[in-house]
């Protein structure tokens, strides 16, 4: 065991000696990106193990060591780390824990502290906990984030988002099962290897590589019928992405014959940086910090637009929106100051999905998640009013929630999604009831430009949006639309008529 050194507040530090001897355990969240991150850290000389376990023992350990009313992700992450430490696979005198820390008014900022409390309870207080953050919280002599590392992580994030975005559009349609996964493995490996050689980090290189990636995914042997119901996933970041957190939601949707659409993590990163800019705008503060934050924001935004351009090179793929699209969409719903947890971004992502024509959305959250009372469940009513075609279900994740109840609710969402595709009908004239199921927006990418202008106006005039009685034409958004001319195509499909 390395010598234990503490800082002034009594926090156990991760020393340079530990860097040489210790293995750092890291919980899984974004399977593709974290796999790359692990490799990136390894390039920097760390020994890293990415934990991919999903068994029930994790929850049990979490329940034992973490206050049971704490959010589910904390319980899982801490449970997973402690399980691993106690598994006997590691020398408990030569292991450290790595955990990301975002900071902010959400209780999630407390994960690292809860983890230390849990270690203490378990008699493992000698295990160092390393915070990965970009806010300058908790520094460690043996763990520094260099500029190179930041660039590598940023690149890993962008590439990871791209790969996930593309593979999600391939997987449901691939003719040879597993071909998308193979390509994911191929590219993640290739990318990190090239990072090691200092290649693939510059914007120009990224542009080229991302186009290559896109091309590769486009050439996967896929069915020409790309008409599976598309289901968006938004939510608290851990349960949104981590299969451990959401009981394998993406896989469940795939099994049910849907195409999952998961907005990437790049927007979240920009959102967190942008919060610093917004704070100064709203409340005053250091202009210098604001300046640096906005430079950083622009850097990532630049990478993001390269990514979008790359996707656009293959017409078969639906491109993602930009961060500024999200900023425009959220107007009239939440202020930019709403930044705790996923903040306004979560609602904006739902709006973005709807504007992409993806009306079916699973809004995931840990049971009792504080910010999501407002930005998740709290906004569904308004979205539904503004976009009556939207089909959103909020699912709580919790150690005690049964999978069957969750799946049944998602099934309901999917039934309604399929109704759109099957042109469900019966003797009753659905159109007369305003149930315009047959109407869909397909393959229309709407950046939300025109709509958000209208929204701004609507807010100022406090006008009630959407004259719903005149529907049949669109999303019922009233003034908001208009010149943008969203086209609507009636799905011409044989209707199965049932006689009663």
């Amino acid at each position, binding site marked *: 065991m390395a010598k234990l050194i503490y800082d002034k507040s009594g926090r156990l530090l991760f020393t340079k000696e530990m860097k040489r001897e210790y293995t750092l355990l890291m919980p899984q969240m974004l399977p593709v990106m974290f796999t790359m991150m692990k490799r990136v850290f390894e390039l920097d000389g760390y020994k890293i193990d990415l934990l991919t376990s999903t*068994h029930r023992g994790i929850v049990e350990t979490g329940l034992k060591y973490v206050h049971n009313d704490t959010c589910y992700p904390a319980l899982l992450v801490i449970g997973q780390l402690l399980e691993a430490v106690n598994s006997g696979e590691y020398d408990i005198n030569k292991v450290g824990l790595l955990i990301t820390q975002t900071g902010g008014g959400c209780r999630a900022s407390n994960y690292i502290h809860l983890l230390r409390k849990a270690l203490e309870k378990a008699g493992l207080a000698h295990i160092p906990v390393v915070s990965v953050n970009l806010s300058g919280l908790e520094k460690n002599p043996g763990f520094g984030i260099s500029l190179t590392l930041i660039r590598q992580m940023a690149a890993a994030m962008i590439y990871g988002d791209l790969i996930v975005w593309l593979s999600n559009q391939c997987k449901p349609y691939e003719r040879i099962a597993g071909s998308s996964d193979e390509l994911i493995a191929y590219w993640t490996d290739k990318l990190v290897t090239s990072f090691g050689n200092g290649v693939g980090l510059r914007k120009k290189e990224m542009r080229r590589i991302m186009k290559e990636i896109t091309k590769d995914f486009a050439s996967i042997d896929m069915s020409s019928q790309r008409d599976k119901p598309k289901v968006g996933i938004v939510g608290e970041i851990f349960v949104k992405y981590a299969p451990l957190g959401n009981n394998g939601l993406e896989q469940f949707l795939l099994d049910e014959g849907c195409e999952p659409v998961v907005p990437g993590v790049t927007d979240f990163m920009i959102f967190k940086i942008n919060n610093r800019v917004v704070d100064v705008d709203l409340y005053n503060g250091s202009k210098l910090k604001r300046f640096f934050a906005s430079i950083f924001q622009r850097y990532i935004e630049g990478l993001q637009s390269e990514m979008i351009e790359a996707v656009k090179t293959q017409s078969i793929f639906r491109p993602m929106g930009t961060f500024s699209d999200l900023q425009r969409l959220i107007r009239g719903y939440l202020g930019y100051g709403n930044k705790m947890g996923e903040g306004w971004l979560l609602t904006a992502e739902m709006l973005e999905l709807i504007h992409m024509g993806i009306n079916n959305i699973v809004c995931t959250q840990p049971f009792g998640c504080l910010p999501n009372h407002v930005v998740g469940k709290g906004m569904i009513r308004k979205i539904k009013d503004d976009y*009556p075609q939207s089909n959103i279900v909020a699912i709580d994740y919790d150690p005690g929630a049964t999978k069957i109840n969750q799946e049944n609710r998602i099934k309901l969402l999917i039934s309604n999604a399929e109704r759109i595709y099957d042109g469900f009908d019966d003797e009753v004239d659905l159109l007369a009831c305003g149930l315009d199921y047959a109407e869909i927006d397909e393959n229309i990418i709407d950046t939300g430009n025109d709509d958000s202008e209208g929204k701004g106006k609507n807010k100022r005039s406090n006008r009630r949006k959407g004259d719903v009685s005149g529907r049949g034409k669109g999303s019922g958004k009233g003034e908001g639309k208009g010149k943008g001319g969203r086209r609507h195509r009636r799905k011409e499909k044989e209707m199965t008529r049932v006689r009663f």
Partner: protein
Amino acid sequence: MRIGIDIGSTTVKTIVLSDGGELLYSSYERHYSQVREKAVEQLKQAAVVIGDEKPTIALTGSAALGVAKSSGLPFVQEVYATAAVVKARIPDADAVIELGGEDAKIIFFGNSLEERMNGSCAGGTGAFIDQMATLLNVSVSQLDDLSLNYEKIYPIASRCGVFAKSDIQPILNQGGRREDIAASIFQAVVDQTVGGLTQGRELKGKLVFLGGPLTFLYGLRKRFIETLELDDNTAIFPQDAQCYAAIGAAMCAESQNAQDYDDILRLLENAADEASDESPIMPLFENHDEYDEFTLRHAGATPEKIDNESYSGDAFLGIDAGSTTTKLVLIAPNGGILHSYYSSNKGNPVTIILEQLKEIYQRYGDRIRIIRSAVTGYGEELIKNAFNLDLGLVETMAHLRAAKYFNPDVDFIIDIGGQDVKCFKIRSGAVDSIMLNEACSSGCGSFIETFAVALGYSIDDFAKLGLFALAPADLGSRCTVFMNSSVKQAQKDGASIEAISAGLSISIVKNAIYKVIRATSAEELGKNIVVQGGTFLNDAVLRAFERIMDTQVTRPGISELMGAYGAALAALDNWEFGLHASHSHSFGNQETTVFANIGEYSKMEISTILGEADLSGFTHEVRPVKCGACTNNCSMTINMFSGGRRYISGNRCSVPLGTSNITEPNLMKYKYEKLRLMQGKGLGTGERGKIGIPVGLNMFENLPFWFEFFTKLNFEIVLSQKSSRELYILGQRTIPSDTVCYPAKLMHGQVESLLDMGVDNIFLPCLPYNFDEGISDNNYNCPVVAYYPELLAANMPRLKTIRFLTPYFGLHKRKGFISKSALYFKEQFSIPECETKKAAKAAYCAYKTFITEIENEADDYIHYARKNGKQIIVVAGRPYHIDPEVSHGIDELICSLGLVLITEDAVSRRMTKESRKVLNQWTYQARMYNAARYVIENDDMQLVQLVSFGCGTDAITTDELREILETNGKLYTQLKIDDISNLGAVRIRLRSLIAAMENSLVEKS
């Protein structure tokens, strides 16, 4: 021909439709978790009508998912199926409400179709009604009949079954009429459905009611009709309503999938259950030898033997009127048991005690003389008054007394009863810290019993089944509602009844350990652990406890009677104390301090308990009334007994009791009243118009600031109405998230009340940051406080008719606020910037003045307490906990118990910042840590933490606060509050605290 099979959580429904849509066959039966078998059975019965036809089939229902998957038969989601059939049969319906065994669903037609199912925490509708019927010891249909004859409706928490149960128990125990309770149960179902599922969309027009409970329960129907103000034209209860989902499934079945009946039957029969996940849980006992060793080890702990056939002499009576069970023990002076009784309350503890007393008199006649009688438990006051008993004592003390009998060195007691889990650590013979469960852990003990009965087993047989289960089912540990649905999932996954029995025992123990004790190892508890309570009679539970904590414990043979036994022993102590101590009151025997009026009783010769003659003429009448003596308008129950004895319950203050209402100083009340005065024009002219302010959440802190700010700007301040349950109901249907805290939910009603008052502007800023008081690492508000205004704007349509101001401000940055607010109010009201800036500066001063006044007032209280030898309670919560509707009068209760009350914010600034083990980043929460540190420096202070249900930040603060207090020899008391809080449970906690405080005083003297 079409077949639809709906497999729900409790029932299977099979229907056959002709091609013309005619219902040819239908059946509706409970499946008792024999899901597939029941479906096959019903399908076989339907063979007659199917004949040689090639039918199409579809399955639906939550439990059909697995069956459909393994059989390959088509599946239709049940809400989708229901929507289809309603659209076809009742085309002009506006909404559908369907209640099933576990799920509640609502479908809105009209402009946009919306289908919603209840959230995870609102589980159990049919199952909930079943449980409540068991609680009242009636069948579901009897419950229905009872409800039709109600006189009054009690407010019962509609959040979930567990909460409702903890509300019903005290009503039962205080003698509430069963008719009223039955109707109240149905009303709770209605409130939950309407409040939890509509989420802002109005229920109006033609409503269709479906599902088993709504088909068969007329009382429930009636509650819906009255609550939603429906009539025969707008409330539709269609024929076959219980089978609608099945009919819908049949309608949705794809006609091209027609297949032979025999094939369908074969597919269904062969639908092998999916292999259940391997259980991570070890069996309770590997073999019978282990079990024998275990039983032998636990056989020892029994009371002294006594020959009750021949005994004559003195006797002492102890009664434990628990929440679900009544226990009675009659002992001889040596502690031997002459008579004992244990039974479920069956809704009326008074009747049970009456019968038992009669039996005792009949059996023993003149052979014994009851010297003292004592009662403990929820029904303490009721029983004491009913039978004129001598003593009442708080449960914790009774349990401690009994545990000491079996193990004088006891240092940890855990009692799992039907309703409550109580744990206490004992240090040098006195209670050192008390852990009582909060609502979510309630009812675990009785859950096993209810469950066993539902499956047709006795509790003993059911428990035995689990002892040797090879792979106990993992059923979670959150609460009984979640466990209930986990059981159903486990059953569908093919778990055996043995596995479930073992799993339940383990889950209940885990709930107690993870949620109540919060310990990870036995060392944290102690060396001499005594377990008790009826639930521990169950060997599986006992074994699970020993297994999980990896320790060996003492379980007395009368584990279920310990409360009553402790009461009897206390009665004995009291008599002995009277014999030995001639003067009335002296510290020395610490048990005796549990009786407030010791002096009076300890000298008596014989118990005041009703004699045999009195019992023959015993009458008990219950009358519900609404107290009008003050603005609290308490819902009270008056119990009248023969001989003119009365017992009133449900009152918050002592006014209706006719005694004077003197209480100790109460800073919560002081603050609240001071804040309510902050309305009107102040020193300004009011010429700029009215600004409405909802008094909720952080307005309880910031109102002095905004009042000064706006009146300086010549606005008139209009405050929302005082909070009340009615106000909450007013805004309830616009609440989108049913798991948010009650103070936040109240905001909806407060805004509604302002809108009713006709204000043009409502001001409620978004404040992610709070004032920086220099006592924390950061100065945030919690996400709910910070952003709730935006939620209100999005969910309350009426707000669109006025100007609802929700700007983002940062009061922590004074300069920033002054300049930003100047710009904002210039934009909104064209107020010159310099004017706003001046007002802002004045506002900061006013806020500071207010804080100082509160702190000074607290100083006065502390001074008063010390002068008069009173103990001081620091109530640590949030500013909004001073709202009487949020705290439910806990403050008044504390003060009526002779304690002086001050609040956390009045003392938090007396301490400097100290680093914490958690991220100390919220201002309000940081105050609590400091208040706790202040309390440990003062011998005459204790801290009580108020926690709102659903408060996420308190999941972090509670452990930290407890640590600060307990490592410094203070008690940690947490009171969890929600929309309805029964003060009965709070009273027990507070009395336990007081008793423990007295003990520690004794120790010191």
